[in-house]
């Protein structure tokens, strides 16, 4: 059964369009005017705890470290990072929901929290059960091949080659049930009329090694995570899943240019606080995290991760719009895919 993309997303175009392409020219720009803010009632008078639902070495661990450093540099308030990996972010989210809602506990999470709620509404909704302080990384996905690949060199030749393999071609990604990767791959394969075997690697190193070593034919990933392989000339992007060509990938076609008419799902990482936290503390945290995004150290980090290629910043309102749009989009797609949406 093919998805009716135009019907599926026509009602979402306005909201999602805002979320996706607010303005590429605003990437990295600081949008918080106040350089300082008084601590409400002395809050915080001790270190904050940031629960991170993934390990310290991965993308979430790194953005948590960079944001914590920036907030501390800006405010002088220390942040202890508490990594609780496992269950695709479930363990960390559960631990956070059980922590006191006093403003001293904040959460880092990625778009998996939104897709998890879309699939099972008993899971916390990041836009309603939490308050987004800031989304500080928004990025798109690409499909990569080895730079020295000779069987195909660009997207059209890749599609042609995959079609000729009758389902034997392989692509490495994180294809867990309902994941952003699996949903986008479903869009792509149906729109391109090709079958490709998705190999799920939950850790980056084996995933990238699989492409480097020729164990798989292609890789689905976000550019910041494979930057070193791009800089070293090991990998070559052949398709960008985004509505327009980002400047640094101006020679790589977008999915729309290749005839695939679907709204791209984005990977985003952000910081949250409990819905029930005292409002004046929430306001201070919003300022601290949104302003910390402007700090040189954080901007340097985002630059190093290709995270300023498109607009990576969403304040609380922008983050809520983005999350709500993503939840609606995921939920509709899950129903179309026949998943048990609760």
């Amino acid at each position, binding site marked *: 059964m093919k998805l009716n993309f135009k019907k599926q997303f026509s009602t979402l175009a306005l909201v999602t369009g805002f979320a996706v392409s607010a303005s590429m020219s605003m990437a990295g720009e600081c949008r918080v005017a106040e350089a300082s803010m008084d601590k409400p009632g002395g809050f915080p008078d001790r270190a904050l705890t940031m629960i991170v639902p993934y390990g310290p070495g991965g993308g979430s661990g790194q953005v948590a470290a960079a944001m914590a450093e920036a907030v501390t540099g800006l405010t002088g308030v220390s942040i202890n990072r508490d*990594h609780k990996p496992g269950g695709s972010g479930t363990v960390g989210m559960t631990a956070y929901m059980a922590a006191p809602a006093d403003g001293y506990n904040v959460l880092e999470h990625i778009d998996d929290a939104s897709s998890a709620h879309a699939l099972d509404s008993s899971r916390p909704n990041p836009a309603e059960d939490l308050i987004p302080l800031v989304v500080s990384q928004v990025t798109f996905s690409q499909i990569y091949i080895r730079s020295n690949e000779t069987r195909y060199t660009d997207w059209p030749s890749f599609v042609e080659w995959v079609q000729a393999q009758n389902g034997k071609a392989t692509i490495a990604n994180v294809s*867990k049930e309902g994941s952003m990767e699996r949903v986008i791959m479903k869009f792509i394969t149906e729109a391109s009329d090709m079958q490709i075997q998705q190999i*799920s690697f939950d850790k980056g*190193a084996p995933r990238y090694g699989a492409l480097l070593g020729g164990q798989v034919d292609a890789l689905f990933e976000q550019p910041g995570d494979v930057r070193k392989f791009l800089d070293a000339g*090991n990998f070559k992007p052949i398709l960008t899943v985004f509505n327009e060509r980002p400047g640094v990938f101006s020679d790589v076609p977008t999915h729309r240019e290749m005839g695939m008419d679907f709204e791209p799902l984005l990977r985003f990482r952000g910081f949250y606080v409990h819905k029930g936290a005292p409002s004046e503390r929430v306001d201070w945290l919003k300022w601290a995290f949104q302003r910390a995004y402007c700090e040189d150290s954080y901007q340097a980090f985002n630059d190093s991760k290709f995270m300023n290629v498109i607009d990576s910043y969403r304040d609380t309102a922008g983050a809520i719009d983005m999350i709500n749009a993503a939840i609606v989009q995921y939920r509709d797609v899950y129903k179309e895919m026949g998943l048990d949406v609760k």
Partner: protein
Amino acid sequence: MIENFLAGTATLFGDPFTIGIFVFGVLGGMLFGAIPGVSMLTLAAILLPFTADLSPAQGVMLFAVIYCTGTYGGAITAILFNIPGAPENAPTAFDGYPMTQKGMAGKAVGAAVLCSAIGGVASALVMMSATEPLAQWAIMNIGPPEIFALVFFGLAVASSVGGRTIWKGWLSVLLGLLIATIGQDPVGGINRFNFGYSDLAAGIAFVPAILGFFAVSEIFIQAEKNVSGKYLAPKFNVDFPSFFELWAHKIAVVRSILVGFFCGILPGIGATLAAFMGYGEAVRWSKNKAEFGTGKLEGVISSETANNAATGAAMIPLLALGLPGGALTAMMVAVFQMHDLEPGPLVFYNSPELIWIVFAAMFYANLSILFVGLIETKTILYLLKIPFQFLAPMILMLASIGAYISRGLVLDVIVMFIAGIIGFLLRRSGYSIPGIVLGLILGKIGEQNFAQGMQMVHYDLGTYFSRPICTILIVAGVLTLLKSLHSAFFQKPKVT
């Protein structure tokens, strides 16, 4: 190579501050490696922000040194108290702790110190001489089907370790494999056996399970003996193994270096699989398999040589390709990135001096294990003189902290005590705790790679046999299984 190594050595020891960082890494790695739960990863996570103030070479060197000495550190508590400091030290406890009970703690610890140093130094030398070609060979030839075949090969021998009969050994391994299936499946992310409890979605963590099966069950057993008046304190002994005792195990050392190195070079695998495979191969090639798990020096030698041999090997895919082999090497990537560097092929051309300082530091860190370890051992063995009624609560408290602190979940403390009770009951009935732990750890790795491999070969199991390495390992594993079955039908039960 020699010139580069000497230049790296000169830079390393030419600056007092760099020497200070090196010494801090050596001692810190040993200390944090020895405390259960508070592993070398904890120390690395604490130090990560501070590396921004160091030079790139100092930062990466510090982490490399911690990696070497931290991998060794957990062996001491595994041998003396049946508390492995980390999963990669668990096989060391299989025979190390029984040796302590027999009054051979000095020999076990001495062998662990020496073999950790030998494994680490050998690994560092190979790393220095052939990083790039080895990394290329590994990623071109080893994929999920080969890793699954390797795990299958390792599991095939697991029934021989520690059980009263081979059947009980197999049931123990199968229980471990069953426990490994708790949590999300490794491919689809579907929850299994979590009974709606979200913390179980991540499965049973290795650290609390190992602490429960080893340390807590041991406390219960010793407490029972204490109450019934049968308790015998471990004999205090600081005699190190003689040169001839160690020389008699030279083949085991070489075999474990090869096994450890092979496992370490695989991206995402690392020292834990190396230690279990090193131990398993010692059992496979032994004429006296039944002696393993009862206090055999070769068990300690094989495990500790293999896990340290994995440290240098794990640096190969990291430095040559930018692919970290485990959690600590993944953190090293962050250290590189904090200094606007990326590990991978370009770092050899852009920062050769950094690479050779790291290589030299790892070489000397492994040598330091020998000297610092021997001094440390002479003092730490006196802990065995503490009476059981004081030692047992201390171990339980330490184990509880270790179980909790790794993820900050009360669930992990509960899991530890449940594992302790199960371990206590199963050990009384002659089942194998090493078998359960082997099944748990190898099961998780094996299932993930089997599922990925099946996707890769389009669910055609026969395609596994079109891959030579895979074929050899699976055939060897099947032969081992058949031999084990033959023994099970015709052997007489052990008298214990």
